[in-house]
């Protein structure tokens, strides 16, 4: 993966590849740009709804990198969010860095953690990886709860202002980068390698694919973004609280969004985020917990009947959409 080649001046070939960008990618790009342009004019309450929708979407894309593209189900993904939030909270609270800039720290914590965890756990086969990731998340919660330096059971309480626009743009930037990276990964050589791993990991090894390095790469990416989103999320509530930061709830939501939307696709995580977000917000005030009856049922149904999710299944069963939807 030679990144230095990105530093050369653009060529005609690059322009040609821009023209080849499909309608889905353009569609998402336009939606994002419209949202960015319109945000300052939206009233506060709808803006917060929009912010959390973007948070959900960002989490879905983060999950898509590992579970969507390689098929490795990560139940403990919330641990990246949580520790990213703690990283952010610590530098903002103790070192008094800017909350906006510190989001990068959250991302860095997520990245390093994913790298470390990945080296150990990615060598395990599917089911064992899932269990190992679950166990790690639970252990992490317990360890944090018992560490006084991180605020113990109380967490880190900050007194930051109510800045919905900053929150919006912070998560918008994260989401935009994620969509761009998802596009780059799925359209390039790496995308082929990941699909091969998802299809038959052992066969992939015998064709020259360095499976460990690829898995680690996407796992680190997903940790990076989850950590950054965790930081923004903590910013919106002006504090880092252990139960909330590490709520298994987030892992479950992330997984549900990717499965419902369509694993490994460009549009899938966005669709999944919208579909999951609606019952979530609706039931939040009515009957907490009920949204999961809907979401859980949807996940079970999709897993058994249309495992490719909404986007994947539309592509499979409606041939006209194959060229358009991805």
């Amino acid at each position: 993966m030679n990144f230095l080649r990105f530093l050369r001046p653009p060529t005609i070939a690059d322009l040609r590849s821009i023209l080849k960008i499909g309608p889905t990618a353009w569609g998402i790009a336009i939606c994002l740009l419209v949202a960015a342009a319109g945000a300052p004019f939206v009233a506060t309450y709808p803006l917060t709804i929009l912010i959390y929708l973007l948070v959900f979407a960002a989490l879905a894309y983060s999950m898509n990198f590992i579970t969507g593209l390689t098929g490795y189900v990560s139940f403990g993904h919330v641990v990246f969010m949580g520790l990213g939030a703690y990283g952010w909270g610590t530098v903002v609270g103790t070192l008094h860095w800017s909350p906006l800039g510190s989001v990068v720290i959250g991302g860095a914590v997520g990245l390093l953690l994913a790298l470390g965890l990945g080296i150990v756990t990615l060598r395990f086969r599917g089911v064992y990886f899932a269990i190992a990731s679950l166990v790690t998340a639970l252990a992490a919660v317990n360890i944090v709860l018992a560490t006084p330096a991180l605020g113990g059971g109380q967490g880190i309480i900050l007194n930051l202002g109510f800045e919905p626009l900053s929150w919006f743009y912070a998560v918008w930037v994260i989401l935009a980068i994620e969509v761009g990276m998802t596009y780059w990964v799925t359209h390039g050589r790496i995308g082929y390698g990941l699909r091969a791993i998802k299809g038959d990991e052992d066969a992939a090894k015998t064709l020259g694919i360095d499976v460990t390095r690829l898995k680690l790469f996407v796992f680190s990416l997903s940790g990076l973004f989850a950590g950054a989103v965790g930081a923004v999320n903590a910013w919106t509530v002006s504090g880092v609280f252990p139960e909330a930061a590490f709520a298994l709830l987030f892992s479950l939501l992330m997984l549900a969004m990717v499965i419902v939307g369509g694993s490994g696709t460009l549009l899938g995580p966005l669709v999944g985020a919208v579909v999951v977000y609606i019952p979530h917000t609706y039931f939040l005030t009515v009957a907490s917990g009920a949204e999961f009856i809907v979401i859980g049922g949807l996940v079970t149904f999709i897993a058994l009947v249309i495992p490719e999710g909404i986007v994947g299944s539309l592509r499979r069963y409606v041939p006209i959409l194959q060229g358009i939807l991805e």
Partner: protein
Amino acid sequence: MTMALVAEGIHKDFGGVRALRGVSLSLTEGEIVGLIGPNGSGKSTLLNVISGVEKPTAGTVTLDGRRIDGKPSHRIVGWGVAKTHQIPKPFPGMTSGENVTVAALFGSLRRTDLRQASEEATRVLRLVGLEAKAGTLASNLTVQDRKRLELARVIATGARILLLDEVFAGLSAGELREAIELFARIQKELRVGALVVEHVMRAVLTLSHRVVVIEEGRKIAEGTPQEVVRDPAVIEAYLGTEAARAAA
């Protein structure tokens, strides 16, 4: 410079079972070496050791002097040695074309340009006679086509030495004839070396320059196909002592 693969004194134990007991063989680019022997003699194990799927308990495998035993299989592919699977393992969610493109991208030629890799994939598919099925999902291919796809994939990795695990098995007489002709044509065009593990005698004897016979983990004969077929040790291994005596 022609690539040379040398396996020396390969031992492989699985718990209590001694699958290979000191097997040595060598082959160079351009040579077809048949590897035959009764069931359970260790032929597939030897292929697995050479391709990096298994680590030998003792012994070395060198490629142009460089030790490759015990190295991860993806690196061995990078150095130019690739193996097919006895039971084809295509990537089910991808088309034949995409399957071969993967090989072209990650094989020893390490292509980075997607378009070039796809073109190479199309070329290889044409070579094995699968170009009509380039757009078919691999999971929808017939068994015979899947075997061709296995072959196409290893060829597309750019390997100079192929390890073929029973590619001619389960074919009807007509299909077998086609497959033998196909392979002969491919080998003439690409000048690759191949270690061909087979049970189908006609294929081995027709195609091989040299044949190695293994029984119970040991090499018991080596020579041209004609020599090996008449070797009493080989006859005994396959048909028993009576037949060997009768042939002598």
